[in-house]
């Protein structure tokens, strides 16, 4: 029977299955960071268990680390203790850690792919909901809780119920100024934050095929914001070219055998999905969110929805609550609205291509003096490449603050915060209340829109500057 890539990935990882019960599935790569792992290691200690497969496990620090000079001590005591605890846990259990001073440190979802650890056909998990990023390689990758981090450490397996399949087809060609981020924001605006609950997305269609690996990662990254634990793109030559020669990619004869295996993964002709949605790529504009969840997004030329236009009472109440928090009026456009902070970074948009995109707008221009602009590369590798291309000089000459790799202002755990009431245009993935600091108001957008808004000091349609 013809199968989707989602079903092929599932079937090839079932260790044991009984009807009506969750299946025991095998995990090929387990990524760990400081925030969601300490209690899991403590659980192992209490049970007297070891890590079953340390060679399939990799740890780094990203959430709690400062984005400032790493040669200085960490001021925040709790953050410092958490980082020290991860170091201690990794030593005790024999896990490779790319720690605070490692030249391979970075956001967990940036370093897995760049090291060639994330490969087609794998199952990848991490105690982080943006693990779907790795789906860009044709892997089944999803976020897990800390209990499950412990289970994977102990058994290299998880108990899972099979998800439903959901095809997200993007037709056509993207217009100038429209990026991968706009595809995923448009999808979430269309289906809502719970639209993909219980499902795995497969992104298909010509507009997805035309994306680079880094762009595919941006799309897959935000699958969870549409409710899907995982989202993926079937591997193709773009995937293989990206992987070839990376430190952990298969070598020589193993490479050829791996590519032959990976070519069997794409969805068979005639395979059926449980759900489908189509997005016309030709019609997409740069997207921006106005509210307090990623589903509250609009094309940048559209007005913010007015509560009076919403018939459903729950939806109207939710919109009113969001607009109140955001200090916005329905019916008016966002373009021209003042901006206090611009953040370019996060596991969604901190890769080298994102930094190049931002630099293409900032080059030879100055950021508005009223705007605080943070550019935070996703990893030490991204930072090295950016330096080789002269990007830090472009950012600094424009008046942006170029920092050390990590999650930074995406979730404001490390001291990089938006002040209460301030407006931020952010390339990150969540605009929840308080996400970027208590009282912070976030507009999610692409690196182009963020860079353009940094220059003007107001929400800007980047197409007017291209």
């Amino acid at each position, binding site marked *: 029977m013809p199968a989707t890539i989602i079903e092929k990935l599932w079937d090839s990882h079932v*260790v044991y299955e009984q009807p*009506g*019960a*969750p299946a*025991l599935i*095998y995990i*090929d790569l387990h990524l760990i960071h400081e*925030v*969601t792992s*300490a*209690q899991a290691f403590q*659980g192992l200690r209490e049970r007297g268990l070891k890590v079953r497969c*340390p*060679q*399939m496990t990799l740890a780094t620090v990203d*959430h*709690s680390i400062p984005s400032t000079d790493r040669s200085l001590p960490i001021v*925040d005591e*709790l*953050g410092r*203790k958490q980082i020290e*605890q991860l170091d201690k846990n990794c030593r005790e259990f024999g*896990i*490779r850690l790319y720690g605070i001073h490692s030249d391979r440190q970075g956001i967990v979802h940036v370093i897995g792919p760049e090291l060639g650890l994330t*490969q087609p056909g794998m199952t990848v998990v991490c105690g*982080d*909901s943006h693990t779907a990023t790795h789906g860009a390689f044709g892997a089944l990758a999803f*976020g*897990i*809780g*800390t*209990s*499950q981090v*412990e*289970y994977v450490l*102990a*058994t290299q*397996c998880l108990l899972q119920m099979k998800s439903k399949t959901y095809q997200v087809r993007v037709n056509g060609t993207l217009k100038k100024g429209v990026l991968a981020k706009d595809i995923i924001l448009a999808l979430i605006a269309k289906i809502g*934050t*719970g639209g993909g*609950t219980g499902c795995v997305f497969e992104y298909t269609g010509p507009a997805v095929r035309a994306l680079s690996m880094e762009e595919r990662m941006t799309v897959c990254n935000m699958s*969870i*914001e549409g409710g899907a634990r995982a989202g993926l793109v079937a591997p193709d030559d773009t995937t293989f070219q990206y992987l070839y020669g990376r430190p*952990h990619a298969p070598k020589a004869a193993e490479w050829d055998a*791996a590519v032959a295996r990976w070519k069997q993964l794409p969805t068979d002709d005639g395979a059926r999905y449980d759900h489908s949605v189509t997005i016309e790529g030709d019609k997409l504009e740069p997207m921006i969110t106005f509210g307090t*969840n990623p*589903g509250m997004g609009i094309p940048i030329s559209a007005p913010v929805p007015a509560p009076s236009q919403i018939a459903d009472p*729950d939806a109207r*109440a*939710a919109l009113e*609550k969001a607009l109140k928090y955001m200090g916005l009026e329905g019916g008016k456009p966002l373009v021209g609205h003042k901006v206090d902070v611009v953040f370019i970074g996060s596991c969604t948009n901190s890769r080298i291509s994102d930094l190049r995109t931002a630099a293409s707008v900032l080059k030879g221009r100055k950021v508005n003096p009223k705007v605080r602009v943070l550019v935070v590369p996703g990893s030490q590798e991204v930072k090295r490449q950016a330096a080789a291309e002269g990007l830090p000089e472009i950012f600094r000459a424009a008046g942006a603050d170029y920092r050390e790799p990590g999650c930074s202002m995406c*979730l*404001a*755990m490390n001291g990089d915060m938006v002040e*209460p009431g301030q407006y931020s245009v952010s390339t990150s993935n*969540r605009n*929840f209340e*308080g*996400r970027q600091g*208590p009282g912070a108001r976030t507009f999610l957008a692409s690196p182009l829109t963020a860079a353009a808004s940094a220059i003007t000091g107001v929400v800007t349609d980047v197409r007017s500057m291209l």
Partner: protein
Amino acid sequence: MKFENFESRMVPLPATNVDTDQIIPARFLKTITKDGLGANLFCDWRYDAQGKPKPDFILNQPHVQGARVLLVGDNFGCGSSREHAPWALTQFGFRAVISTSFADIFRGNSLKNGLLPVIVPPDVHAELFAAVEKEPNATVKIDLARQTLTTPAGRQIGFPVDGFSKHCLLEGVDELGYMLQHEAKIAAFEAKRTGSIDTLA
């Protein structure tokens, strides 16, 4: 710990799409233990900038103290995978959350921590909110073995829960302990795998 049947008042929180950043903000995730999270449950809705309880917020009202059921809007628990969310909810005293739908990761995390996500149809959901608005001390009964919720009006409503999770909750089965019993099957699967990565290389 075994999940027992119980009767409780409900704490109504009608907002939809409540994300885990609201349940427990990221700044409280620097802890390396599971303790002390209940005090910061819904922190930014519950306390003002000076840390004083906001009297209007439902969790600060005297009549809900000791209630074990949280009644919430659609798609509760979306966003981050942080298990700190169900830890904070159970530490506050909740044992069940009632909604029309839950985000996947939150639902899974809750079931592993003795917090029962109860999914009800929209009409029952509306009826429960109406009941608690009319009578703040209205109670519901939750019977996991029979998978029924009894409304304040005495109506019994069935709710779905997968058989494995139900068994684990009722019998206090430890999921990891169950998985470890399959050691031989895991080893057999590993023997047939090809092309593994090696992060230690």
